[in-house]
């Protein structure tokens, strides 16, 4: 447990020392959302109708642009091969890194989402399901995205490739994240959608940690 926490603490400390890194993801999230009123026109009715979708899709894209940094630095300076040789199983190392990734991107995006909703005229009843959905969905993104990040380690410039690999995996999370908001707006119960998001997270937990660890072992050979 001590080793597990040490990895999370180190990643968070490195991110704060490097400064801009976490801010980069959030900056991307805010700027990309700001583009939509310019693109589709500033009518509050239209924006309010598509606000939840904009926030969710942009959250997926913001997570995707951050994955390239998940293992790259550790791979380049030899930290990764050392982590693979520690008594702590590599699957748990991956899990620790996914947690710190989520704290720096998914959680931060979730906290910013209400502000973005305000800007896009999101209906009042939609805030709750949007936040609850993001809280359950974004950890699954951090877990599944690790697979893509680990698979492209062998490639020199893998950034765009990660998007192609992981965005299809994010589709179920997006579908049920949005359906949670839609259901609330038409007066249907919210719980089933959140339960499915929770189930997706429960699937992403083993798939993400075992899949990423296997891909990392291949990259280290």
């Amino acid at each position, binding site marked *: 447990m*001590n*080793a597990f926490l*040490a*990895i999370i603490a*180190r990643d968070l*400390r*490195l991110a704060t*020392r*490097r400064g801009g890194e976490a801010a980069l993801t959030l900056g991307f999230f805010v700027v990309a959302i700001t583009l939509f009123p310019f693109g589709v026109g500033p009518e509050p009715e239209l924006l309010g109708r598509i606000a939840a979708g904009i926030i969710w899709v942009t959250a997926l894209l913001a997570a995707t642009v951050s994955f390239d940094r998940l293992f790259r630095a550790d791979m*380049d*300076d*030899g*930290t990764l*091969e*050392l*982590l*693979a*040789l*520690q*008594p*702590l199983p590599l699957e748990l190392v991956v899990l620790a890194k996914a947690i710190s990734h989520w704290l720096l991107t998914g959680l931060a995006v979730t906290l910013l989402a209400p502000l973005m909703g305000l800007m896009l005229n999101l209906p009042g009843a939609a805030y709750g399901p949007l936040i609850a959905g993001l809280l359950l969905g974004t950890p699954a993104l951090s877990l599944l995205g690790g697979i893509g990040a680990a698979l492209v380690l062998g490639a020199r410039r893998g950034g765009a490739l990660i998007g192609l690999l992981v965005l299809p995996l994010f589709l179920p999370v997006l579908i049920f994240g949005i359906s949670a908001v839609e259901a609330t707006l038409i007066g249907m119960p919210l719980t089933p959608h959140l339960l499915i998001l929770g189930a997706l997270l429960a699937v992403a937990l083993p798939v993400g940690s075992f899949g990423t660890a296997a891909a990392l072992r291949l990259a*280290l*050979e």
Partner: protein
Amino acid sequence: MTAGTQPAGLVADHLRCERGGRLLFADLCFAVAPGDALLLTGPNGSGKTSLMRVLAGLLPARAGRIFWQGRDTIEEPAPWRRALSWLGHDNAIKPQLSVAENLAFWSRLSLPGHSVSEALEEVGIGHLADLPASMLSAGQRRRLALGRLALTRGGCWLMDEPTVTLDTASLTRLAAMIARHRADGGIAVIASHDVLDLPGAQALDLGALDQGILEPATS
């Protein structure tokens, strides 16, 4: 073979390694007892690093087995992982962290036998503990990487070119560090081109082994 039939220490049993269609070594056997050291030599490309990676478990061997204290390191990786300290080509140093913070992270990942400050003193950079690692010279960075091994007591050190960028005084210090480790009952496997003072160490010249291009299998 089952546990107990192998001698204590590190044992390689008929190891075979192929990389990119080239045979690097086959039927390689050796045994390193506690307190002993093995020096790997051979020209560039003779497979020293590959052998190190096979021993560590980073690279699967094509054939053969590796035993640590009589246990197969693939079937039962846990005891081997706890005993193993790896020094690769890369130093695994984060420039954003201080010298002591770099070492403290690795000491939290395993069960250290020595404190961070003791390890830093042993590799001669105790006075640099609070400096950001980005300020270190290449030789000091290598010494910080060696400090990771100095944290451990006993176990097995796998050192791939430990002497790279070290000055003469540091070479002497490294030899003393390995001697201390061996006196503690530790094992050191060292791949190096430099002359290191390793009294009583076994030597293995990978350049003298049969190597060559593999014949395509006739089917």
